[in-house]
């Protein structure tokens, strides 16, 4: 029997078995940011330890960076956090992409951009959206701060081996259905806790046809389905994307690429579970509640607690509807929005802004809507400028901002106010997620966010834009 990519990467990075039975796993690449790393460096200093492989950790700032004026921290604590990561990287010899480097951005955008993210590697970061890097055939996952300390000190962590679930999606997406809809649909089908204990392998001809950016969007939200990591097998597209990037061994590229490809799951690999989904069944999907698995098609009604099958389900729907201030059993289409957010590690790459720019020309954001577009990195921002995209967004009434996590988790000044409702291309619709304890989030694809911004309410982008000729996945 052959091996899955997960098994190959796990086996090649296994250092040994620890006393409690867990694996000591080598972390080839470690990414750190300003929020979850300062305490880890503090622990390191307390224990008198050094960073074992400083060349294998890469740092930038993303969570708290203001997007209106990047170099003016919002408050003294934000300034202290930025100063702390600068000093920590300096003291311990870690590569740090600061604001002046031109390479700063959301870690999960920066890693692939720099070619730091590579197939067949293990990648850890104190951030649950690290699974994004799985798009390249890496085993990538989020860790806590004590584990950030462990990686800094030993380049290893203690980890329980995961099971592998292959999620096979075959067939063509219908026009107006995007990678974001694919992952929202998967999470809706399998539940927010369906992936606990699993790594997800996204397979089937749909993922084979997807661009690297689309694969990143899907892998990014694995954790929203409970799976700590998710990946797509590396192929010719993966290799082509990485060739020539700064941290790739471009001098021995053929050999490197061959090694990368050898990590792909064998045809006769064992999987602990297999789920099959027909791409044609996927609709433009939006959330209505306070968990990412609360997804419905744009043409569906918000669930009615009266139709719940168990008392627990009824209570859960009622709690979500009370928070969202939405009536059950009514269409999600038409729900008024106050804010539109385009960006985040899920949908903040060049391809996302390009796609939206195609349709917003000649349209205007509704008068009562605040719409912001936030590139995922400084490089994405420059690429967008080279294509004249900021002008298109501004012309349509969007504020065009600088790179960072921004309103995905609102640790910078970009926050909802009161119970504002935000049409968001980000990844989480938790209570209070976007910075106001009563703020409300409706997750959707970037094109659906743009349509909502223009109409002033949640709407079916297929009725506003001519999406008939477009197929997100070629």
């Amino acid at each position, binding site marked *: 029997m052959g091996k899955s990519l997960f098994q190959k990467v796990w086996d*090649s*990075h296994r*250092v040994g078995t*620890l*006393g*409690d039975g*867990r694996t*000591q796993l*080598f972390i*080839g690449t470690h990414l750190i940011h300003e*929020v*979850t790393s*300062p*305490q880890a460096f503090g622990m390191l200093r307390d*224990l008198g*330890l050094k960073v*074992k492989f400083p060349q294998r950790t890469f740092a930038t700032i993303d969570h708290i960076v203001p997007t209106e004026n990047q170099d003016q921290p919002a408050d003294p604590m*934000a300034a*202290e*956090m930025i100063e702390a990561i600068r000093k920590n990287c300096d003291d311990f010899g870690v590569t740090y992409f600061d604001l002046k480097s031109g390479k700063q951005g959301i870690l999960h955008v920066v890693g692939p951009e720099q070619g730091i993210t590579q197939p067949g590697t293990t990648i850890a970061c*104190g*951030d*649950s959206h690290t699974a994004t890097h799985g798009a390249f055939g890496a085993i990538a*996952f*989020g860790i*806590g701060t*004590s*584990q950030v*300390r*462990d990686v800094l*000190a*030993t*380049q*290893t*962590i*203690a*980890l*329980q081996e995961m099971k592998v679930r292959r999620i096979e999606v075959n067939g063509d997406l219908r026009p107006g259905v995007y990678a974001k809809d694919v992952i929202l649909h998967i999470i809706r089908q399998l539940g*927010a*806790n369906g992936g*606990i*204990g699993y790594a997800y392998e996204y397979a089937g001809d749909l993922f084979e046809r997807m661009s690297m950016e689309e694969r990143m969007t899907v892998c990014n939200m694995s*954790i929203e389905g*409970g799976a700590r990591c998710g990946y797509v097998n590396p192929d010719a597209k993966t290799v082509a994307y990485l060739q020539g990037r700064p941290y790739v061994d471009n001098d021995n590229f053929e050999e490197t690429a061959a*090694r990368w490809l050898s990590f792909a799951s064998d045809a006769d690999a064992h999987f602990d579970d297999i789920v099959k989904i027909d791409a044609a069944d996927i609709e433009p999907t939006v959330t209505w509640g306070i*968990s990412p*698995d609360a997804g419905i098609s744009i043409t569906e009604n918000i669930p009615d607690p009266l139709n719940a099958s168990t008392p627990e389900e009824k209570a*859960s729907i009622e709690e979500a509807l009370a928070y969202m201030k939405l009536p059950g059993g009514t269409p999600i289409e038409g729900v008024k929005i106050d804010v539109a957010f385009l960006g985040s590690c899920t949908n903040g790459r060049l391809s996302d802004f390009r796609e939206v720019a195609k349709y917003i020309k000649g349209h205007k954001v509704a008068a009562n809507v605040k719409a912001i577009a936030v590139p995922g990195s400084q490089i994405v921002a420059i690429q967008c400028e080279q294509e004249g995209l900021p002008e298109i967004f501004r012309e349509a009434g969007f504020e065009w901002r600088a790179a960072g996590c921004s309103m995905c*988790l*609102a*640790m910078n000044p970009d926050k909802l106010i009161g119970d504002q409702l935000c049409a968001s291309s980000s990844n*989480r619709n*938790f*209570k*209070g*997620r976007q*910075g*106001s*304890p*009563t703020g409300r989030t409706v997750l959707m694809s970037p094109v659906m966010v743009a349509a909502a911004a223009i109409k002033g309410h949640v709407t079916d982008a297929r009725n506003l834009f001519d999406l008939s000729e477009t197929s997100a996945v070629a």
Partner: protein
Amino acid sequence: MALDPVTQASGTGVFIPGADIDTDRIIPARFMKCVTFDGLGEFAFYDVRFDSETGEKTNHPLNDERFKDASILIAGVNFGCGSSREHAPQSLAKYGFTAVIAESFAEIFYGNSTTLAMPCVMASAENITKLRAAIEAKPDTKITIDVENLKVSTCCDLEFSVKMPESARDALISGRWDPIQELIDNDAAINERAKALHYV
């Protein structure tokens, strides 16, 4: 560097209803503007404990006087989902919780909690309901989690089995819940592994 074994946790409990209680709910992101974990205890569940407009206490269970001394948190499915922030179990521990009993846990939260010596055990929905009824009827019901034998018992006849991954149980009862020393001790094997990896 032997650590103290964690063989049991005991105290009174508080039930926090709802599935999928995420780590943003446990500790809202704005309280992560810090460079240490000190002081996070007072912000645990902050936005559901206090009305954001009036600042007044809500009817959240943590505001219920009957449960103010609870040290065991009882919850439903997928507790601790979402963000990997260790700030979440840190804030619970600093708030005064020593253990969590839930139907199920999100994986990253689970690992983070174990590393902080905070046992998280899984109980059936039925037993959670019984435990909830017991503390509702008698809020000072003493609950004991026997980590070694994976049993929960109360002063009042209710007793049931719970689950925990064997690695977590072993780590707690053997006093190796924080693996740093063992990881460091395997330095030679780490170096060997690094050499075998082409990209390191």
